[in-house]
């Protein structure tokens, strides 16, 4: 069993139910997820697409769904021809109530060898999660600029895998 490539944690002042909604409502994900709508019925075996401006960027499939505690989905980036050819990686959310906060652990693993997707992921998650925390706790997302969004999609071309 290979160890996960990425583990991210953020503590958010909310309830597991509200956080689950924030993670699964496309109108809400658009506000903090680099303008992406995550669309699915969130049932095991169902597809999930990440769309920006109507264009599908990532194709996913729900692998585990235990609201409001745990979710897993496969991830395939299709906005780049090299990434599209890679085997899908795997994302897991774990939501744990700790007093008045919820600990959200995001694990992203099982990347292809020499994955092109990996560097763009490394760039994107911290931004998405810190935006998510910000919007839930303050009602305001951090502003996301078009330039930043583009730079996540092209991070692999700069060779910033480290």
């Amino acid at each position, binding site marked *: 069993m290979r*160890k996960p490539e990425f*583990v991210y944690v953020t503590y958010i002042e909310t309830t597991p139910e509200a956080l689950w909604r924030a993670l699964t409502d496309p109108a809400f994900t658009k506000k903090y997820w680099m303008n992406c709508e995550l669309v699915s019925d969130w049932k095991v075996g169902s597809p999930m697409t990440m769309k920006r401006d109507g264009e599908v960027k990532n194709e996913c499939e729900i692998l585990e769904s235990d609201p409001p505690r745990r979710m897993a989905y496969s991830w395939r980036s299709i906005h780049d021809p090299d990434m599209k050819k890679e085997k899908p990686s795997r994302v897991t959310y774990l939501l744990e109530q700790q007093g008045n906060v919820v600990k959200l652990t995001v694990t992203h693993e099982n990347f292809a060898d020499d994955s092109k997707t990996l560097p763009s992921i490394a760039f994107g998650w*911290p*931004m998405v999660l810190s935006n998510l925390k910000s919007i839930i706790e303050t009602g305001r997302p951090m502003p996301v600029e078009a330039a930043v969004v583009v730079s996540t999609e092209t991070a692999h071309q700069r060779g910033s895998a480290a």
Partner: protein
Amino acid sequence: MDEVFKALADASRRALLDRLHARSGQTLSELCDGLDMSRQAVTKHLAILEAADLVATIRHGREKLHYLNPVPIHQIGERWIRKFERDRLVALNDLKRRLEKRDA
């Protein structure tokens, strides 16, 4: 956020974060390897880093693995840096749009 700054205000802890940045998902033993610090001291520093959410840990089989968690560092950047950077990006975007419109 106080905890993040307190945790970062120590060269040994920054050295541990550097090691995790170089290679993520290390066990305590791997982190201690080649370091001029006792296992006890490393354990103590890791606890402080974890309390500040700068280090995330997971159970992987029988091992406990440590990861650098960049989310709080990103928040610091957003809070004090992006505010200034944003105006420049917006200005550049406007310029690009105007120039492209003129050429069209």
